[in-house]
């Protein structure tokens, strides 16, 4: 299985997990909208995976400038 296919399946799995949790929360009377929105937002990323580089050679930043 190629890397891009693995990434697509993983993103799809995470997206569906969020949508499933959102549905479960909503059916039980709790606000599921935030998880639903995240689930929907992840869906197009499954398509994008493999079309963009996994990471870029951006200059390193000092992480602890964002302390806490």
């Amino acid at each position: 299985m190629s890397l891009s296919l693995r990434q697509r399946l993983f993103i799809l799995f995470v997206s569906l997990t969020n949508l499933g949790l959102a549905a479960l929360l909503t059916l039980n009377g709790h606000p599921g909208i935030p998880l639903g929105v995240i689930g929907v937002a992840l869906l197009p990323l499954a398509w994008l995976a493999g079309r963009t580089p996994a990471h870029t050679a951006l200059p390193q930043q000092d992480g602890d400038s964002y302390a806490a």
Partner: protein
Amino acid sequence: MQLDAVVLFFVLGLAAGTLKVRLPFPGGLYQSLTLFLLLAIGLKGGAALAEHASLRIVWQSLLVVGFGITLPLLAFPLLRHIGGLDKINAAAIAAHYGSVSVATYAVAVAVLDAAGIAYEPYFPLFVVLLEIPAIIVGLALAKGMSAGLASRELAHETLLSPGIVLMVGGLLIGAFSGDSLTKIAPFFMELFQGVLALFLLKMGLITTEQLSALKQDGPFLAAFGVFMPLLAGLLGALLGNGLGLSIGGITLLAVLGASASYIAVPAAMRVALPQANATLSMAASLGITFPFNVLAGIPVYLLLAQWLHS
């Protein structure tokens, strides 16, 4: 529908950052707010520790450290085999996700306080304990088991990072100051929520900066930044339930598991793994996982805790 006021400050920061509003937020103020929060959390925990110290806390602490060791070991294979990241970057990101975010913890405490849900008051001890093991595991994953804290500079960055010193210092002052703590309580305890709200306004602005970096760094990290808190939050909640914690305690342990560090770990990784790309880990932990936990995760962990407890 009612939303927590503190969380809404974060949303305001996100909106301002997205709309590119130039909010005048001095860097020194941000550092001061950070210092205040770390000390206040430590003080609260120290006072509680002095009151509730017992053998039970010792074995709970050991299991919590074991939890901190497990999380990067779960994250690493995902990053390597699905993310396709090299060993160094995968280990660095795994270390971030094994450690904790004090800001996320503070938001969870604010949410529990607002809802009137009790939790074990000695939790800041667990926050401190969970900061360090993931760094050592991350190093071992990147360099092999012999890496440890062999370098003096690394040991200094890991064990004496400003965040750890302030929290441990606060814990000790809170534990040993007795009744004299009431003299500083109006400043550190009663102003806590207001300071946290201002801090989160700035965090919202920072998050939008990190999100723009993630646009270039791949969809996988975005999904990972959502998946890892759900997995670690579930494991944290199960551990909390197993330890016999209250609903608030189970929620907080889930939050600690779900959060990703941006105090101790980036500083330690800069020394130990300078070749790792810090943008990747910061974009995932600050751009994705922090807002996910604040906006969606914490209520889910609370519901999970209520369900497990019942």
